[in-house]
């Protein structure tokens, strides 16, 4: 037969349980914050300077190299990408230089007026549309912004 708990014992049990709850809750918040914290990080919008507007020729892709600094955890790496800037009127389009077939780097052929892939004969027009060969889709475009004389690409 168990005796009914007296008020003092009930108070002590409640106090101990409360302390356990506070400690457990605090540790839970700390652990949960560390585990799911990265999910709430906002990606910063990064604009990279790609070149001068004056250096671009109308409707002719101009290759430029951009350096993208990436932070992954504690490691920081700088990657270089070649993109083609195409000026048409007031607009500037940035095309990826990576062929959509198997990832080779395309280059501009000024005589044929095409972006050609050296690997499997893929060819694109200055807007990035496929005009020959096996590429399944147009060249990827990147978001650009013109500020004064400078062209910026969103990383």
């Amino acid at each position, binding site marked *: 037969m168990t005796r009914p708990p007296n008020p003092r014992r009930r108070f002590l049990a409640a106090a101990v349980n409360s302390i356990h709850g506070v400690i457990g809750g605090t*540790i839970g918040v*700390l*652990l949960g914050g*560390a*585990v799911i914290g990265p999910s709430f990080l906002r990606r910063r919008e990064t604009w990279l300077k790609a070149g001068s507007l004056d250096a671009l020729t109308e409707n002719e892709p101009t290759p430029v190299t951009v350096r993208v600094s990436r932070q992954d955890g504690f*490691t920081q790496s700088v990657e270089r990408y070649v993109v083609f800037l195409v000026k048409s009127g007031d607009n500037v389009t940035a095309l990826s230089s990576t062929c959509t077939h198997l990832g080779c780097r395309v280059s501009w052929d000024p005589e044929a007026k095409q972006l050609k892939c050296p690997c499997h004969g893929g060819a694109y027009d200055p807007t990035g549309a496929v005009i020959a060969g096996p590429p399944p889709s147009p060249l990827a475009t990147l978001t650009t912004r013109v500020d004064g004389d400078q062209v910026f690409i969103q990383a």
Partner: protein
Amino acid sequence: MESFFDWLDDRTNYRAARRHLLEEPLPPGTGWWFVTGSILLFLLGVQLLTGVVLSMYYVPSSESAYDSVRFIMTQVTFGRILRGLHFFGASFIVVASVVHMLRVVIFGSYKKPREVTWVTGVLLLLIILGFALSGYLLPWD
């Protein structure tokens, strides 16, 4: 609220399990010296939980260990507090285990029928000391 716990107890019998796990009849005269084992268990739990989360960000290589610890301290949410808990918990657990062993020796709790428990405790103390030493080296600083 009480009716909910009654409903839960009818289906899981959790109150009996809690009684079995937590409610230990103690002899008269039992004082605060007998909480050293519970303190050790609590510290062990903290070390395990904080260690698991820290291991998500820590890189165990001589090239990256220090950088990953610095990342934990500066970039991870609550990382500085978690590492602090783990760091100081490691020291406390060594102190608490020594205090617990002394308590067992002074109160004669190693005698029959607790010899196996005593030997297990000594082995656990050695393991704790090993973890403390290896953990101390992990930042590679």
